[in-house]
């Protein structure tokens, strides 16, 4: 790989199949893994033993780094973000990192400002404001 074709998520160059693939926010992954864990607890005496290391590490990670703790707010975050013509990948980065300012949001996801897209600072500001409300009422 070289030059312009090189993968770069900040410019949203991540390969056709991943642009279409469904991405998940940390909060969503946390819910699914917790649910899986409970299922295992019911059928096994020693659930920890049934888990792969990768599962365990992921579960700890998403617990620590999920900004929204309850299922309802995670759902609302996705709803709000999906009104803004974002790619799945951008949507989840914003949902995970919860930037507080427009500057921060653009630094985390520079692709929202690339040519031909309609994200004005005002629109981003409004979106971040809506997200902060969810956090406030959680």
């Amino acid at each position: 790989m070289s030059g312009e074709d090189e993968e770069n998520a900040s410019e949203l160059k991540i390969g056709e199949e991943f642009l279409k693939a469904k991405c998940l926010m940390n909060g969503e992954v946390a819910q699914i893994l917790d649910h899986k864990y409970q299922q295992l607890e019911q059928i096994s005496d020693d659930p920890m033993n049934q888990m792969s290391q990768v599962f365990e590490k992921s579960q700890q990670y998403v617990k620590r780094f999920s900004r929204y703790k309850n299922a309802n707010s995670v759902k609302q975050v996705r709803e709000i973000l999906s009104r803004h013509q974002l790619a799945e990948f951008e949507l989840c980065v914003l949902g995970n990192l919860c930037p507080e300012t427009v500057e921060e949001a653009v630094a985390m996801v520079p692709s929202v400002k690339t040519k031909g897209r309609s994200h004005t600072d005002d629109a981003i500001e409004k979106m971040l404001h809506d997200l902060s409300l969810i956090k406030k009422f959680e």
Partner: protein
Amino acid sequence: MFLKAKLSWNILITCENLNSNELTLHKTIILQLLNEFSTRRATEEHGYFIAVISLDKVGDGKVRTLTGDVLFPVDFTCITLKPFRGEVLDGVVDKVLKNGLFLKAGPLDSVFVPSKTIGKFQYVHGEIPIFLNEKMERLEKDTTVRFRVFGIQWKESDRCFRMLGTLDGGLLGPV
């Protein structure tokens, strides 16, 4: 980034585990799938295999003539974690060395940040080594940091990704 992926694998059921009861057979296939899912650990294409969410379809089995084992094509949905170059992630400092930091972000557990790309931080030698900047912000073991991925290498022999990260640049660093 965590991805929801639809995969199709072939699951081999040895002839002694075959059962004419459909439910029992179904259970054997599921268990074998879960088993293979965790032992395969990761692939370069999809990243780390985290959890199977649903079993979508079990196709007709094909008998292997020599052994009598049966191969079932299985479609399922799962969660994977694949790192992308340029992506911004949150992680935790794992080790502090003179020439850089090692970070962990879940299963992505060896992300190296060379001291050149730590930004305005200086290494401070001591019993507990740390990196310190002019604002007296510290980077030590267990500090939460925000970093950007700038290099990824797939290690086929260990079935894992080695990554390079940077803290240099706007709004990255300790959170």
